[in-house]
């Protein structure tokens, strides 16, 4: 499971072909791997390294810099409770304590059934709904203890499946272009980009030739 499925590998190759330097596809490929497994497995990082031509250590170095790329397992739902100023004043700290008791895990840990990972996060820019929590980067709030338990119950029952996909799924990207893009569309986009680049290069070359004559005399 941890390496790319044949379908995702095809997507990975498409993503690679979008960039002049394979290395530029490192982060998109990390997202793709996380979309597949919910987190970045060591095997996935090794495969990303092979695909973009760097060492696995460099992939880990880059991925570990970003909070939204997880290099250790996370639950299906990543619940981030905000304890930054606006939420703190509105009861964020209490919400976090309640979440800990209710889920039975400390911040940073995952429930035994693998459903929920609890995190304490800084401001997620939803202060109008303080105290708030983000579930797989979808915002919920204001949340009291009861509302939190109800939210967890709904998530556990699958009632919010349409709204909150499993952790790692790039649904927003997919809606726009991203992974749902057909092969033909990517190919067309690449052709257009190639043509534009070629046009730019030839214009530059013509310009250089024009000024080059002057340069050789000086």
């Amino acid at each position, binding site marked *: 499971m941890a390496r790319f499925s044949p379908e995702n590998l095809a997507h990975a190759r498409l993503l690679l072909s979008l960039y002049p330097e394979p290395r530029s596809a490192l982060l998109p490929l990390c997202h793709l791997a996380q979309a597949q497994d919910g987190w970045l497995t060591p095997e996935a990082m090794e495969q990303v390294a092979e695909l973009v031509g760097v*060492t696995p250590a460099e992939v880990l170095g880059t991925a570990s810099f970003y909070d939204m790329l997880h290099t250790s397992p996370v639950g299906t739902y990543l619940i981030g409770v905000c304890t930054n100023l606006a939420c703190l004043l509105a009861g964020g700290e209490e919400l976090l304590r309640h979440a800990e008791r209710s889920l039975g895990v400390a911040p940073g840990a995952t429930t035994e059934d693998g459903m929920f990972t609890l995190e304490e996060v800084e401001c997620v820019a939803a202060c109008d709904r303080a105290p708030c929590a983000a579930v797989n980067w979808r915002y919920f709030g204001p949340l009291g203890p009861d509302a939190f338990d109800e939210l967890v119950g709904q998530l556990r029952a699958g009632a919010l499946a349409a709204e909150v996909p499993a952790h790692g799924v790039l649904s927003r990207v997919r809606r726009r272009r991203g992974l749902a893009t057909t092969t033909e569309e990517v190919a067309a986009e690449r052709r257009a980009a190639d043509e534009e680049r070629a046009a730019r290069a030839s214009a530059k070359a013509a310009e250089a030739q024009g000024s080059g004559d002057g340069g050789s005399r000086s």
Partner: protein
Amino acid sequence: MTTPSPSPSPSGAAEVGGGAAQAGASGAAAGDSGAAPQEVTITLDGREVAARPGELLIAAAERAGVYIPRFCYHPRMRQVGMCRMCLVEVKGPRGFSLQPACFQPVANGMEVRTESPAVKKAQDGVLEFLLVNHPLDCPVCDKGGECPLQDQTLTFGPGETRFVEEKRHWSKPIPVSSLVELDRERCIQCDRCTRFAKEVAGDPFITFQGRGDHTEVNTFPDRPFASYFSGNTVQICPVGALTASAYRFKARPWDLEQVESTCTTCALGCRMVVQSSSGEVVRHLGVDDEAVNHSWLCDKGRFAFEASTAPSRRTHPLLRSDARLRPVSWQVALSEVAGRLRAVLATDGPGAVGVLGGARLTNEDAYAWAKLAKAVIGTDSVDAQLDDGLPAELVAGLPPATIADACAAKVLLFLGPDPREELPVLFLRLRGAVRDHGLDLVELSPVDTSLTDLARASLRYRPGQLVDLVRQLLGSLPPANPAVAAARDRLVAGGGEGVVVALGRSSIAESEEQTVAAAGLLRRMLPGATFLPLLRRGNVRGALDAGLAPGLLPGRQRLADGGAFATAWGGLPGAPGRGARALLEAAATGQVRALFLLGADPLSDFPDRSLARRALEAVELVVSVEAHPNASSEHVDVVLPAAAPSERAGTTTNCEGRLSPVGQKVVAPGLAWPDWAIAVELAAALGADLGFASPADIVAERARLAPLFAGVTSAVLAGTVGRMGALLPLRGRGPDGELGEWPAGATGGLERLDPMAVPGIASVESQGAPSEAGVVRAAGPVVAAPVGGRMAAGDDGPAALLSWEPPEALPATPPVDAYSLRLVAARRCYDGGTAVQASPSLAALAASPALRAHPSELERLGVASGTKVAVRAAPGRLELVLEADAGVPKGVAVLGAVPPAADAPGASALVRAGDPVTEIRLETLEAG
């Protein structure tokens, strides 16, 4: 040196040739364009100071005697400006502002303040931040006492901290490789080790991970920092975060004694210091030498010192009796050898005695043994190479190139072994040259090597067809592909002027005839090209220069031209003797009855194991002068224990012909003697007097008799030449008119490099004492080599050194057998050699031998990668694991030349000595 220096050197000294000038130009601050000013002036703390255009402020200030504190800056790597310790005030349009001195190139009229209150406050602040998470465990830290963080905190820091919170904690230490341990709590994120791994070594297996105060240096899980150069990260770490497993808790810096020396693990001759504590060598550190190693060492050179205290070390003379080697006194051993040797000489004459090896010896040892063999015993059958190198006359007689020449060449044509495996630091130099100024590298090799990705063209030839490829390159055969044609245009332009050829044996499964013929073609067709011989063994060049080769005398003299030696030595062998292969063949048929092994192990190192075994079994008397037992030991009759590196002083010569010192730091264990003393005593037992009571006597006689060593007196060796090294023969005169002294100022004079590039005692002395202390290194090679292997007319010293006349006839191209694969037997860095096997840190890294071939060959055979197969060749049959490797062309198979264990099968079991190529056939093993 044929390349003219780009501009007259500042002092106008005419003695310095291209080598020195180019070495200077490869430094960070090369100002070689004609129009650019040679010098700019900056105001440093109110004082006017000269600087080189484009130079970094931190380097300019240091040359002017102002030490700006720093952690991340390293003169041999790109600056990153990460630690902020080097903040100084630089005047801009809006007055003075703080700028990192490591990121600020000097400009004419720049005003700089390094000791103002603002700078002091910045330094205080940076250090306080760096110490926030740094555990103050200096009393138990290996770095304590030589720690740039400790020293610079003392000199520039605030003295106390305001941080009272809990510090960051990590588990400690964790191994990042079997050689290097990491304590992340101590790390200050200067990016030196990670930058080294990526930028210099090209092995980015350690990286920064995480972010902010959670940033750590680490490897990928279960992927260790497996680099041949990992030990350098320990040396450049400015704190105690990276430590070498071999040195942890062994010594404290203030207890260390050190001596400057030269590494003889391979023929590159990296400069280093040997440090000892309580009479035991505890570590090697690289010394920054512009001409050779740029401060780096490979892990083999850094950790192989462990071998000298290995339990297997030879400490007493041994004599075989009742099939066992038993300890005896020196007197018994020597009289036994002398008696049996006299018997051989009496019946069969000196032609029945041979001497093999000598690359382990110092130059002085080798001279004494050459004199013993050629003057006392009277045999010319002496060979320092075991049929695995190049003919001595070719090595000595081709127009020479230095490492710096190779790095600055117009085109570097590389015909040789994988440098990362055989001459590791040469790989770093070439990689740096490609990275920094786009060296045009053309590689001719039978398989992919570490240079393949760096080369502008990497051309493949099937073993046995090198000459064909060279003829295509030079235009006498139609080119096989466009890459060859493109490379040809760059090579032949201007008669090869500016072209450097790096020449070595890429495989010992081929005889040397193709390499020799290729060298001859290149010599004739590219008269302007110079050659860097890539011999592998430590001091093999020095041994050849000392006359440990058939037909040669010390100082690159032919036996026939050795009139001075004939007189002084009282007689010479009448005719040239046998080389290693002929010697072993003669031994196998009983013509040679006594054999001396000078640290040679024919069973492991000679390309044809079966011939070596037959020879050793047939010879009546085998005397081994060795520091460690080896695979050949079971055939040895008398063992004479010799001193190991760091146990004797002298000189060594690297592959470019550079003489440099090896230092003595400890005493040889037990009854081991230096090799020259063994030669003297053995001569005495034979009733002859070599006339040497100390190495100084050898130096004096050598300077008198051997034209190459003219002027290399004890006094010169004790001076600049002895410290810095020098290309031979010496030219040029020092300020006091002494031959061989470096004309000071010719390439900018002596230069202080970053004291943190030279840690150890020097760093303790220099960190807090900005301008006075510190190790001083030259910026360039000392003297230029003559053109064409001959002294230039009008120079001091005798004239004729030998030159090599390439043979006219080309060898026949061996016909291709479609059912066979051609074997490539290449050496690996970690192999079965005693230096690796007797060093606990390195022995575990030697990989088991596997045969590698193109995936299609495995398909044809119908086996998966990793399957054991039968390998048949003319001398015998082996069973080996076969692995798929797309870097090996079809029709070729690769096997390590020396297996990690004495009893493991290696390539030499498949090679027949003298065959132009080795054909092997693969067969599947019967199931079950």
